[in-house]
């Protein structure tokens, strides 16, 4: 064994290198303040390892990325690894800040260690870009919206901006190439650059530290002479263990977040991650052509200013130099925290932003819930929410129907038209809804025909003549009739399943004393052309035809109020207001809005 190790050492000289590293001595001896550097290094190593493992499953494609990340999360080990990768990236940024401030405080950047300082500072923007390129890789709505804005910020830099933006996006807009580019930066270019800089950084650290070969008389009484290994190393490992402990706790408990898949049809207010909040806030004070001052000039000036420190600060241990450094540290820290805090406070007071964020959280939860039961097809995870009536129903309704119809009732997100001019469609086709319609008081109310041109039409008069309280007929009998008719119609709508005796009685009433078939067609009785067909009333296919073409003879004909034809042209689907898929989703949701809203 010994001979093998000797053989290796003869060729590699590894003992010399190891002893050079581990027998270093630190100014003032080992201490906790020095642990930040080593923790950063080991976190970097952990990031590389977890990253490599994730690469074995992750797929950088716009359609598959979200699904592959979700797939990783399905195994508890994968979820844990991704969690570590996520939280460690945040921890590294914090530690980096701590580390830079420590070096600044102690003035450890002075000659001959300028290169240690400069490479270290250069590593900072690289690390930031590293995390920034990592966030959108899951192709979540949040990540894509963030990189979209970040790309545009890059694009608004004078001269090179548009070119750099094209380079990042791989085109004018986010598309297939964007993700490949981000992935290339994240797992290819940046690791190489960071690796190179780290090598110079560490080589310089070791080269410029004094060292002492250990001897039999360990000078425990003079800590300045204690060697790095194991006196500093043990502190490093304790700090690292604590940090990793915290990271693993979060990784185990929550995993890394996975937000709703990106969909260009969704509006979203992206906010940058916390470490960029100060820039976000700063940028609000510039606008238009001067914005790059906040986003580019100021950060670059900071970086260059810091880099110049070793060349400016040459007075060793003079009280003025110490004071200056402290002032700079406090000013930076204070300015950063202040801007960050303002930004968070502003958002916290912005009800629209809060509502939107809450909505987005729900959407993300819904996407994860759907992904449990629904398969993800080759069209990608985007279809999960696009095919979901609960998600799309309210959106489609708001876009196409809300200008006239409200949809408000218990247990649904309330959609109230600002100037309702048509019936409230909450629960259309249910016994309750139809009962209200047949109610002599309510038919002319805002919930039904109150704001339409039928307000004083035959239907309203007929219902009022039939069911209004005129003292002749007992109101309980009338209510029974209304109930029976409502049930009969709800059976047509297929919202009422069983064919009860009530339904049969209702059907009789509709055909006979109810007088409905004088105007409406109902199965084999009555004519079309005077009022909407009651056969299959409010069923999916009935609603589909009605929405497609309300002025069809089966429905309102030329008496149609203001309702547009949503599917006017079967031959040219692109010219219709609603696609047939959208129509199906809308109807499914209209008929079933109450089941477990997201």
């Amino acid at each position: 064994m010994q001979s093998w190790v000797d053989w290796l050492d003869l060729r590699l000289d590894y003992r010399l290198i190891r002893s050079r590293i581990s027998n270093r001595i630190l100014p003032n001896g080992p201490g906790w303040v020095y642990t930040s550097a080593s923790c950063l290094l080991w976190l970097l190593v952990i990031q590389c390892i977890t990253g490599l493992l994730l690469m074995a499953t992750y797929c950088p494609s716009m359609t598959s990325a979200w699904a592959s990340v979700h797939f990783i999360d399905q195994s508890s080990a994968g979820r844990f690894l991704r969690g570590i990768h996520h939280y460690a990236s945040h921890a590294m940024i914090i530690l980096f800040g701590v580390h830079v401030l420590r070096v600044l405080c102690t003035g450890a950047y002075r000659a001959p260690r300028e290169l240690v300082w400069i490479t270290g500072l250069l590593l900072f923007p690289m690390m930031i870009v590293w995390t920034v390129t990592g966030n959108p890789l899951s192709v979540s709505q949040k990540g894509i919206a963030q990189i979209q804005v970040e790309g545009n910020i890059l694009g608004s830099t004078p001269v090179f901006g548009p070119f750099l933006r094209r380079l990042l996006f791989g085109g004018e807009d986010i598309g297939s190439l964007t993700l490949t580019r981000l992935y290339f930066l994240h797992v290819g270019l940046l690791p190489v650059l960071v690796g190179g800089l780290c090598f110079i950084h560490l080589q310089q650290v070791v080269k410029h530290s004094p060292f002492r070969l250990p001897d039999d008389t360990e000078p425990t009484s003079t800590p300045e002479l204690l060697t790095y290994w194991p006196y500093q190393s043990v502190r490093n490992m304790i700090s690292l263990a604590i940090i990793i402990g915290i990271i693993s706790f979060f990784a185990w408990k929550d995993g890394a977040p996975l937000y709703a898949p990106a969909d260009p049809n969704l509006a979203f207010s992206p906010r940058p991650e916390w470490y960029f909040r100060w820039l976000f806030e700063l940028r609000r004070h510039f606008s238009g052509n001067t914005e790059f001052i906040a986003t580019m000039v100021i950060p670059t000036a900071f970086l260059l200013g810091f880099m110049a420190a070793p060349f400016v600060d040459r007075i060793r241990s003079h009280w003025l130099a110490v004071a200056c450094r402290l002032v700079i540290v406090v000013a930076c820290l204070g300015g950063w925290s202040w801007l960050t805090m303002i930004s968070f406070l502003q958002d916290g007071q912005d009800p629209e932003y809060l509502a939107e964020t809450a909505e987005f959280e729900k959407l993300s939860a819904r996407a994860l819930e759907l992904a449990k039961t629904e398969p993800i097809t080759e069209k990608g995870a985007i279809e999960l929410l696009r095919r979901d009536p609960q998600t799309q129903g309210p959106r489609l309704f708001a876009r196409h129907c809300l200008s006239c119809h409200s949809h408000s009732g218990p247990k649904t997100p309330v959609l109230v038209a600002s100037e309702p001019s048509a019936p409230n469609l909450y629960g259309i086709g249910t016994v309750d809804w139809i009962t209200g319609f047949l109610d002599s008081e309510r038919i002319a109310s805002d919930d039904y025909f109150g704001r339409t041109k039928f307000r004083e039409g035959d239907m309203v008069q007929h219902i009022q003549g039939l069911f209004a309280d005129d003292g002749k007929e007992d109101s309980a009998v009338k209510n029974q009739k209304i109930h029976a008719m409502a049930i009969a119609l709800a059976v047509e709508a297929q919202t009422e399943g069983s064919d009860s005796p009530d339904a049969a009685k209702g059907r009789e009433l509709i055909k006979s004393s109810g007088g409905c078939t004088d105007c409406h067609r109902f199965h084999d009785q009555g004519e079309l052309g005077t009022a909407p067909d009651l056969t299959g009333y409010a069923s999916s296919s009935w609603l589909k035809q009605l929405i497609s073409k309300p002025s069809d003879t089966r429905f309102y004909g030329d008496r149609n109020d203001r309702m547009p034809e949503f599917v006017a042209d079967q031959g040219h689907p692109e010219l219709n207001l609603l696609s047939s898929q959208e129509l199906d989703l809308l109807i499914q949701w209209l008929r079933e809005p109450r089941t477990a809203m997201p």
Partner: protein
Amino acid sequence: MNRRELLEWVSRGLAAGVAALVGLPGISFFLGGTQQQSSAESQFSRLVKVKDLIPGRPTMVPVMGQKLDAWILSDRQAIGRVWLVREADGSLETGPAKQTVRALSSICPHMGCQVQLQSGGKNFVCPCHRASFGVGGQQLPDPKNGDRNIAPRDLDELECRLVCDDETGDNWVEIKYEKFRTGLDHRVAGV
């Protein structure tokens, strides 16, 4: 030049040649491999019937077209979105067209997010940094920001015309979709 110098220069030259052989195509590949095209730009595309637009209420309409995204060609993709605003008094169901519809690009001139209609439908607001615009696209002062609007210019108005379909007599809105660079106080085509 002595023999030693000559050999040095030959070695350097050869090394540079080899590096260029790989490096130059590498650079040109990296910088040049960006392509996206969409069909609906710079030609009029037909969007909706005028009668389907409610006067005074802006409607967001996708502009569909064919889109080539690097190696994927997709048909009927939303290549952009516009807000159509029909003037409140125009009653143009059929017959000769008068310009009563305006088209505004939904791309926020600030940083390119999608501008939304504020609840109530009285103005537009961008979800990203809360720039707000009137229904005509003009910037509105932002009280939270010292009455300054963070957007550098008004919403971009797009060329829009009304065309009467001879067969059906319907009036259609047609627009020419274009994108403009964000973050500038004047319009520059492209991104």
